[in-house]
């Protein structure tokens, strides 16, 4: 029998409300010293990625968020109890530090999308031009235009990201920002903010929307701090390992 692991938190003694987890198993609390982990039994070795399972995972983690800010595990974390206990004892200090950093805070998410994709202006390529300049020259000219357009979009994305950062900096405790993860997505950002500042955060975003109608904002939250839970990423950032 393995354990499906949902999240880690401090001081959860009993479940306030009985919750069903993956495969309909009851969610329970596994305690180790000061750390509590929400788990449920799983007969299989893995949890299939289905919409139902993903939403169940999210619902269990969210059920804790009303009372504490947990450190969520990524979907699909299946271990033996011995492996989990070993993980908790090995990483106790950093996990406690992480819990401290998210205490009283939640994650807010914002994705900014180009409302109108900046398109290249295709050069007219009639036969006479090709004959005049040569196919090779035309190809290089188009390639150059493509690169310039890409550089322009990158510069614009960087400007928007800076604007987002500066506008929200007073409210944001920590942030994870990805520039242009896809062609149309300019910026994807996760912000860690105090629970009491959610209203101000939304107001700021509303102002930003009004100031830049050429951009489309997709905002959501509050979330458990999924984007701020990863120990590996912190190690990478802290020690500059790439």
């Amino acid at each position: 029998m393995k354990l499906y692991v949902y999240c880690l938190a401090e001081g959860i003694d009993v479940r306030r409300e009985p919750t069903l987890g993956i495969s309909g198993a009851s969610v329970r609390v596994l305690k180790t010293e000061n750390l509590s982990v929400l788990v449920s039994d799983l007969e299989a070795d893995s949890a299939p990625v289905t919409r139902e399972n993903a939403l169940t995972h999210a619902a269990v983690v969210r059920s804790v968020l009303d009372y504490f800010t947990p450190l969520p595990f990524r979907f699909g974390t299946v271990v033996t109890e011995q492996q989990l206990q070993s993980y908790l004892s090995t990483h106790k200090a950093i996990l406690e530090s992480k819990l401290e950093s998210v205490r009283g805070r939640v994650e807010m998410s914002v994705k900014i999308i180009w409302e109108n994709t900046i398109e290249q202006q295709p050069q007219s390529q009639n036969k006479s031009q090709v004959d005049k300049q040569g196919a090779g020259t035309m190809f290089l000219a188009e390639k150059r235009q493509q690169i310039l357009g890409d550089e322009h979009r990158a510069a614009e994305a960087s400007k928007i990201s800076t604007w987002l950062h500066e506008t929200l900096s007073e409210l944001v405790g920590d942030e994870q920002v990805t520039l242009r993860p896809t062609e149309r997505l300019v910026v994807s950002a996760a912000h860690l903010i105090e629970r009491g500042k959610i209203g101000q955060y939304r107001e700021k975003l509303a102002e930003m929307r009004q100031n830049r109608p050429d951009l489309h904002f997709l905002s959501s939250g509050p979330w458990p701090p999924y984007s701020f839970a990863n120990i590996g990423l912190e190690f990478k950032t802290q020690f500059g390992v790439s």
Partner: protein
Amino acid sequence: METFVIEEWEETELSLLETLDHVLNRGLVIAGEMTISVADIDLIFVGLNVLVSSVETANEVLRKRQSE
């Protein structure tokens, strides 16, 4: 037309997409113990071009596991 589609997502699917994006792509990982199966995948957002990273991530994990 494209804007309309995005607005529709915002109303009906954004919450689900964001949930999937969070739980599949982020969170604590116990190294070497993450087990994901996409055999029974029925996520509804395959084919959308804004928030497909979750499926891509799941597929990448699967590919890595298969190549090991």
